């Protein structure tokens, strides 16, 4: 750590205040957390993570997402129209991503064959580390390789990922139904997916 706990705590108070006004403050910290002590304070203080649910009819259309997976396959989000897509922005270096990874892996297995597709977007990472991460957490679903955050930028006009990790639930018609900023829990995400797609 660069800084003593006292100042980090004080920075945390300020950041928490900003986070109340704007979830983005906390989010920037998601990436920040890995970089500076300042970020340590700002991202994970409150422990309450923002979940936004969009009503049917008020769901923004997800942007066109294309990319290459870590294994080199072309990917087109619109090709998954007709299935619910869970899009998870992550990085192998990101502690909260590592924390939520077991839940995501298990949920992907739980919903397999139920018309729900899990797709990761691996940001600011090297391919070797990302693949090692997927081995560690036995992640079976593919991830897009996005070292430059280009896919995150595609979402900036609709529901931007406001931190790492961010999980988006996209409904059958390609509209964004929910966003979780921060660590997703098994129960929380399962409930969201089920509410989007009644069994």
């Amino acid at each position, binding site marked *: 750590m660069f800084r003593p706990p006292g100042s980090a705590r004080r920075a945390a108070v*300020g950041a928490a205040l900003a986070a109340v006004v704007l979830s983005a403050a906390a989010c920037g910290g998601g990436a920040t957390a890995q970089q500076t002590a300042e970020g340590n304070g700002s991202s994970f203080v409150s422990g309450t993570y923002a979940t936004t649910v969009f009503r049917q009819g008020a769901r923004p259309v997800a942007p066109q997402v294309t990319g290459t997976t870590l294994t080199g396959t072309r990917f087109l989000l619109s090709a998954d129209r007709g299935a619910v897509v869970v899009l998870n922005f992550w990085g192998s270096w990101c502690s909260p991503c590592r924390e939520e990874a077991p839940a995501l892996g298990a949920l992907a297995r739980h919903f397999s064959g139920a018309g729900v597709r899990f797709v990761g977007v691996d940001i600011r990472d090297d391919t070797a580390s990302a693949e090692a991460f997927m081995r560690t957490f036995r992640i079976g679903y593919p991830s897009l390789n996005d*070292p430059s955050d280009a896919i995150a930028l595609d979402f900036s006009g609709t529901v931007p990922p406001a931190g790492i990790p961010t999980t988006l639930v996209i409904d059958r018609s390609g509209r964004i139904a929910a966003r979780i900023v921060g660590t997703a829990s098994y129960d929380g995400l399962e409930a969201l997916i089920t509410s989007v797609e009644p069994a």
Partner: protein
Amino acid sequence: MTGLRIPPEAGPDERATEFADAAGPQVQAGARPAGRFGAAGWLRWGWRQLTSMRTALILLFLLAVGSVPGSLLPQEGSNPEAVAQYYTAHPRLAPILARFSLFDVFGAPWFAAIYLLLFLSLVGCVLPRTVRMVGSARQPPPRAPRHLARLPLSVSYRTDQPPEQALASAARLLSGKRFRVRAEADWVAAEKGYLREAGNLLFHIALLAVLVSIGLGGLYGYKANRLLVAGTSFSNTVTALDVFRPGRLVTPGDLQPFSLTLDRFSASYVTSGTLMGQPSAFNAALTYTSAPGGPSRRYLLTVNHPLVVDGVRVFLIGHGYAPEFRVTDGAGHVAFDGPVPFIPVETSGFTSEGAIKVPDASPQQLGFAGVFLPTTVDVGGRLASAFPAPLKPSVSLVSYAGNLGMNSATPQSVYTLDTAGLHQLAVAPRPLTAGQSIQLPGRLGTLTYLGYRQWISLAITYDPGQFPALVSGIAVLGGLLLSFMVRRRRVFVRARAGAAGETIIEVGGLSRSDAAGGFEDEFSSLATEIRGLSSPPAPPASPGRPEEHRGDHEPPEGE
């Protein structure tokens, strides 16, 4: 306040024509017996203190003094790495400075307090002033004093022109010289220099506008930092930023959607003389697009020459080395392969430190604490860097295995290892040059040092208040100049019939004493012109200020 107060009704009292200070009535109110001060009284007293010129000046001074540490000390917002360095260099002083928010001056509570008090003080001063100014601008000049000879400047003479005619022509003359004129039966009062008050007001309002502009930037602007390794790209979106400080009303969707690639970075250093090792040039070759799918443009980013995209300014604020490593774990998988930004800890040799974390190595997590030396030299058995350029780069590592502590949400710095759950591995401490590897004991894996890349750190700032602040800053100066250069001045003319049937004319004038001189000349030429309108039959009855015109003793016949 230095304002002019024009009494609403001048009355016969000559004092009415004197410029009264606005503090007058305040002093009266303040002179009430102290024992009678109720809560309302104290409030009123406090408000008067706050809105006084003195308080505003003190606050303005404090604001200026308060921003000094912002330029002397590294700031979190603009250069977090330098702040971190400061902490390592001054471990005892830094926490004390941080307690007073000196690493984030412009976000400090005390700075906000000064700012808000100044704002309040100015509002409290400008509002009543505007009302008074509008009132005084509408008011006709005050009545002429009875004895013009008592005014600072006066002259009197006799003429055979009838009083009414003399007054009427004097009024016409003054009016023609853009005086505001009030003409009555036996006197004329004229006033000029209302622009002084307007300038004064402009100054205050513009000062207010400067503060509002800064506030605007605080609400709708944002600051961000990003470290970018050569050959990589980033997009201006929240997840891609290392530090993001949004204004209160900024949402992640508001960020301008540009992307930027660092193609090449080069730093040049002085290679000889006393300045040896000092940087001489930094050049970062960038390719950017202002929106996804837009055309790519190139830009050569240098220090103090920011890239401006879509109103956002991108500054080059730092640089460093990112050694590249490949780690193969005990199971034979490549578990890490990429550049790792190291942070410079000193500038003369650019010795840099960093950490390599391999959380997904099998069977155990691996960590390495490293020191990168751009120009490696052996100083009495100790390795050091003699020059900031990469003339003989090497990296020395201390290897660890165990638990990196990364699988919980507790965040940690990427630049340092948390060694609490780690144990050090017995590896001979040998500096690695590009292509060399270390074999970890216990079949934990291999690390190879592949070479290095360079990185730059960018400060991204968006401040919509910047242009309004510039405009209002210019207006502040304009208002100040106007209020310094324009004098508020009054000229009075009285005419009465003398005992011998002649007309006695008195001209008097006064101006604020603190203003720049020149009124004396203006008055004397005015008086001469007024006098020139009529014909003096006799020498002046009562000498006022000596006049230097003697050529007009012959009565002009054509009048």
